[in-house]
């Protein structure tokens, strides 16, 4: 009888402590999840920003202006172009 009571008391105490522990752990994990979500958002933003920057640098108006003004490039004339026709298989 007494032994049963002692075991039950011990079990009860263990459960209570586990409850406290799991609650704490759940909060920690939730905080971690939140932190990671924020990080994901930041990285997404960063990605969008870089994508925009890449576009800004590679847009054709910029390429044309650099090619013609800085590099003095010209479009090839027709007589300087060799057209290669793919052979019909």
């Amino acid at each position, binding site marked *: 009888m007494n032994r049963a009571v002692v075991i039950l008391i011990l079990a009860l105490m263990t459960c209570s402590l586990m409850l406290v522990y799991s609650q704490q752990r*759940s909060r920690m994990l939730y905080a971690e999840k939140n932190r990671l979500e924020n990080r994901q958002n930041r990285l997404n933003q960063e990605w969008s920003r870089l994508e925009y920057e890449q576009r800004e640098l590679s847009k054709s108006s910029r390429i044309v202006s650099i090619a013609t003004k800085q590099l003095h490039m010209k479009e090839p004339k027709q007589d300087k172009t060799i057209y290669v026709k793919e052979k019909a298989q």
Partner: protein
Amino acid sequence: MKAHQPNSSNTLVLRLPMWRSRVVLFLMFMGFCALLGRAFWIQGPGNDFYAEKGKRVNRVIALPSVRGKILDRNGAILATSLEAKTIIAYPEMIPDDLSANKITALAKLLKMSESELKKKLIDSKNQLYLRRQVEPNVAAKIKELSIPGVVITSEYRRYYPEGESMSHIVGFTDIQDKGQDGMELSNDESLSGKDGQKHVVIDRLGRVVDDLGDYQPPRHGKDLQLSVDSKIQSISYDAVKKAVIDNRAKAGSAIVIDSYTGEVLAMANYPSYDPNNRSSMTGDQLRNRVLTDTFEPGSTMKPLTVALSLEKGLIKPTTQMQIGHLQIGKKVITDTHPYPSLNISQIIQKSSNIGTSRIALQMEPEDMWTMFQSVGFGQVPKVGFKGAVAGIVRPYEKWGKLDQATMSFGYGVSTSLFQLGRSYTVFARDGELVPLSMFKVDKPPVGTRVFSPKTAIDMRYMMELVTLEGGTAIKAQVPGYRVGGKTGTAHKSMGKSGYASNKYHAFFVGIAPISNPRLVVAVMVDEPTAGSHYGGDVAAPVFSTITGSALRSLGVAPDATLKELVQNVDTSLTQKVALKR
């Protein structure tokens, strides 16, 4: 037995006075009462204090949604939302003894004068937006000042990398992220997202530790892919801009159509505006003239009239016609150069008003009206743009002989450049009119047959003559490619007072390559005033620039002098090229 019985007399002896237990009972009762009272107090009248405490750990966090991107046909970004900072001030929280240096620094970062900033802070009681959409580095500097009561929050700001060349198509949003023009307006619903929120518990250090259930995820806006090719668009815009400036014109427009798919590859207007910086914007710059402005198409109408007559079997390309002098009622129809006689191809090549009128007068008004309708004139194009107009085609019952004649060369009918460009897809697609799309098309659409393939092909050859020696638009030629089209030079209509004698619209609508058409390009220049005002001099060179670059960019093989251009390369070189791919 007796000894085992409880001794009743003993208990009686030990009995304590009754009042003592009563007192204990009473005290316990009072204790419970106190607890009850306290509980009542906390739940009821004294609740505010705890509610206040609770708010600190119990918060609703907004989860902002991001507006969808707008992309071109190759996935290049035309509009995107990036994070921008907003500076908010709570005037009552700003200490009175704030150092003057900090105020000066803040005013400088906000690009305001110091007095303006102080006035703003004094005038307002509640929270105050000091500045929205601040660059991240400026926001960081403001944060470094660490002024109590000045808070930085995040918002999204729209960016348009293509700037003014694409602004009429893409449009722009207002500061609340609502679409105001172009695609941003007409597709606002699918582009805009919906903010979400979550209800959380935070700990002493401000970290989120628990979720209280009602989580609403943010719904981000959908991306939108257009049919436009940003490279061709950029080329078109530059060409139109150059033409407007060189010809000292009021405005100019161009549209490039892929006749295989009906996709609009470019739609350019000048004057334009930079959607990233709209401070100096007027209504004139805002108009997407390709869709919103109608005009009388002038001679660009002639191929349609001639095609109808060919279709009816009334004429052949080689039919010889007396031109001479034509008077209808009091009105004399005139040509730029007088010709005694021309064949049908030459009527197109030389753009003879008299010849076209004579062809038109052989037909029934109803047939011409039906043809105008079937190529889309007089109807609002279904293209998903707000503000697109229908133009005017009057009912044929009201046409007189003169009306019928003038309409055959494009007076008395009005269309937009979009409709005019679209109508030429009937020539490019062997007689089929194709619906145009501003969005990328997966499979080629089904066209509606207007003319027979033979008529369309005959017309293409006639239109090629326009760009050859003896035609009105030699300047439309594109090296390496066979092109064809029709010029137009129309007196501007001044409403009731008739036509302006010295104000013109110059047009060129063309098709390329003639042997296997891929593109329809329509160009309009409004009121050219420097030198020539003819479509062949003003609009045709724009066509040539745009078409040449667009064909190369699309990788369309040259068809003009291909035989001379293609060298018989040995197989090893071909293999090398193949390997490099």
